[in-house]
């Protein structure tokens, strides 16, 4: 039955991990549908992934230009209607710039791009994208970014913490200086999740440090079937 479920993967000019995200969608059992930045409809998909990369070169700020593309307008509309949306790395930046998630991602504290296998604690296992994990579980997922330091006003941080909206936290070393070791967050409804680490690069042991990332893609499928 899940074979009929479709997950859209958006390609902006400069998206890099779009094929990888599509591969992870396929590995989870859904059908990946590519969406182009200029598309004005979502082709009937059941969920959307905004993948990693450097949309439009990201010279200004990560995601700053991509958020104005026609397809993102549709994603915003759908997300507000409850569609599951996952933003990975650059996709997380787009979600913040588009105000689907609060806060912003700025230059890493070390001022360098960093690529490494990163341990994360799953803090919220009840979102559409994290229900397959157990709360408090440690997973290993690669990070690779130059602008991944999560910042927000003190009020926003307090609100995220109070409402349990921190989805993932860095463990065993914070790679970028993110406030409260925040690696990923969710919106209040739990359908929109953004994170800096790359679950699509952790779907098998041949090409990734673990297969822990696949759970994000299978979680959303289960939630869609249940819905």
């Amino acid at each position, binding site marked *: 039955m899940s074979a009929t479920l479709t997950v859209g993967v958006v390609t902006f*000019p*400069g998206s*890099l*991990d779009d*094929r*990888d995200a599509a*591969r992870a969608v396929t590995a989870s059992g859904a059908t990946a549908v590519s969406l182009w930045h200029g598309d004005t409809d979502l082709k009937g998909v059941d969920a959307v992934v905004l993948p*990693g*990369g*450097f949309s*439009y*070169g*990201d*010279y200004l700020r990560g995601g700053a230009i991509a958020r104005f593309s026609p397809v993102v307008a549709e994603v915003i509309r759908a997300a507000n209607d409850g569609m599951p949306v996952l933003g990975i790395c650059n996709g997380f930046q787009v979600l913040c710039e588009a105000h689907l998630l609060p806060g912003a991602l700025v230059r890493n504290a070390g001022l*360098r*791009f*960093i*690529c*490494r296998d990163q341990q994360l604690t799953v803090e919220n296992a009840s979102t559409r994208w994290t229900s397959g994990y157990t709360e408090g579980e440690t997973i290993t997922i*690669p990070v*690779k970014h*130059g602008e991944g330091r999560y910042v927000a006003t003190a009020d926003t941080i307090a609100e995220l913490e109070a409402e349990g909206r921190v989805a993932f936290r860095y463990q065993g070393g914070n790679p970028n200086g993110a406030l409260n070791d925040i690696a990923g967050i969710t919106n209040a409804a739990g359908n929109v999740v953004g994170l800096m680490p*790359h679950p*699509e*690069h952790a779907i098998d042991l*041949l*090409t*990734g440090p673990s297969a822990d990332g696949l759970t994000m893609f299978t979680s959303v499928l289960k939630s869609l079937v249940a819905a």
Partner: protein
Amino acid sequence: MTPTIDTVGNAEQTPDVEQPFAELGLKDDEYATIREILGRRPTDTELAMYSVMWSEHCSYKSSKVHLRQFADDAPTSDAMLVGMGENAGVVDVGDGLAVTFKVESHNHPSYVEPYQGAATGVGGIVRDILTMGARPIAVMDSLRFGDADAPDSRRLVPGVVAGVGGYGNCLGLPNIGGEVGFDPSYAGNPLVNALCVGVLPHHRLQLAQAKGAGNQVVLLGAKTGRDGIGGVSVLASATFEAGSETKRPSVQVGDPFTEKILIECCLELFDAGLVTGIQDLGGAGLSCATSETAGHGDGGMHINLETVPLREASMTPIEVITSESQERMLAIVEPAKVAEVLALCDKWGVIATVIGEVTDGERLVITWHGETVVDVPPRSLADDGPVYQRPVARPDDEQDALNANGSKTLPRPTTGDELRATLMRMVASPELCSRSWVTEQYDRFVLGGTVLATPNDGGLVRLGDDTTRGIALALDGNGRFTKLDPHDGAQLNLAEAYRNVACTGATPLAVTDCLNFGSPEDPGVMWQFAEATRGLAEACRELGTPVTGGNVSFYNQTGSTAINPTPVIGVLGVIDDVAKRVPSGFTAAGRQIVLLGETHDELDGSAWAWVEHGHLGGHPPAVRLDAEQALAGLLAAAARDGLIDAAHDLSEGGLAQALVEAALINGIGATVALGGDTFTALFSESSARAIVTTDAADALLATAAAQGVPAVSIGTTGGDAIEVEGEFAVSLAELRVAFEGTLPALFG
């Protein structure tokens, strides 16, 4: 610059005008040859084109006679689809797939502006691979700097590394390996060599030819600006001198985003069969792309130069034709397909402009607002440049003294404590310490096909989602061995890259090389070059791995002192099933560690001599190509049959370094018992050796015996220390601090 344009008509009427050919780097006789070819004096624009195309960098005038051996003596290989002479060689890897790869230098630009120099070096080699019709799938980089704590290195290392990473990361190409070296001979002249590999279905192969009169010449990509004008001749074909800053061309700035969409756009053009020829714009810009495609076609070409989209309207024809602006390609398109090409480019947001057409004449004619500024036979620019048989002379006094000064007299550690202290200093030295400060700045995951990357011996990528087939690559150079003996040193460099590929479980197939040397006008340097190329050609033939292409970088010196001669060698291998790949790190405790190959007392030119004594002299380790081949055969068989679960080659730093690296990767220690002289066993750099781990030692030793590879079990994996029985033990925690702390402490 005269405001009026020097036309062909004008040149005919004013034969006696003085021309600044010497300032442009042309010799008297070269200028005379140009006049002879044209039957008149060249126009200003023609002169500029000849000067860049006949520069050392573009024409290979000093190296051509030596490089010929790579083709003439090449081993016969059924795998070779396109050999030397194209933008990059193409190798068949089965299943209808082919692979193309090449390494190229960007040394001098990286010294001038480390970030942009390195970035545009990556951008340039990626376009070479794209030009063959391939999708680029990975990059590697080989970097060399002066002493790690030299002020120059503080400026260059962070900039170069950020530039390699910045461009490759934004392009979405995994970096799967490379090397970083430090030696005072590179102070003031760092080496920045970048490699790219791509994959293509056989039918998508593209060639850089302009065929078919009436076909349109379309320029794709970035607008043309004043970047790097004269860069090729000025920067890469002359020695740096203090105070030469003013001669430096304006720096090329890379735009990886534009390159990314250019790649996607070109691949769609290829797949749709919309182009009949394609060439990247690199060194010498349009001069090179137009003359090479026309020269390799079947007719001539007419370019309307004023139609080239410009960043600055005030550019002169000379500037437009020699600009080295990045992220541009030149496509040859049938008239009926032009509209489709322009539409596809528009979809990607790539600027595409028809700037001329293929003609049935034999001339490359370039006009500027209707006035003819160039009218030349294209091959005279691209192929028929000067060829020099430069004087070659072994610098006997210097070389004999160097070879006579062996390492035998250096004091060696003898007690367990001394050996331990030596090991700790060596693993913490810039020479041998962890490279993760560098490699953490590179994305190795993107594209989802990376099976092995840093810190493994070789990079290994799967060729697609629907195949188990993969390719392995290693990139190696050792300027000290080559300094001691250019012939044997070059062979050892090749052997090391070959061995690294073999350690991944892949079978070595083909070679690319970047030959970094001093000034070709120095007969001693030319001797090094002649010896190195001879050694390389011989070894390639013996190992059955042809050179498919590469690059020569001369004039790497500061003042009159040349760098250590540094051939950087890339070896490509194939593996049928990437799941059989063999990593370098110990993967489990309780495995037997087997040492393959023979260890001799060979410490001249070693990391030990350098790190502990600052010594370089004597003769490099013996070259054992038969043994290398046997070792590679054994490793491939053992990987295929699942006999080994880790393999690490022994090179710089010897067995000691290999054990430390293999242990630290997954935090699994080892206990070894070394017979004979422990010092030699630990630190000798004899070639043709590797360590492997196995839980089927009997089968492995039997296979090794059958294949004639010396093999001996030296211990077992496990624990949280490295222990050399009867000598010393050191915890992994202590080793890790020493190994990993050095580069962060130096570079932040």
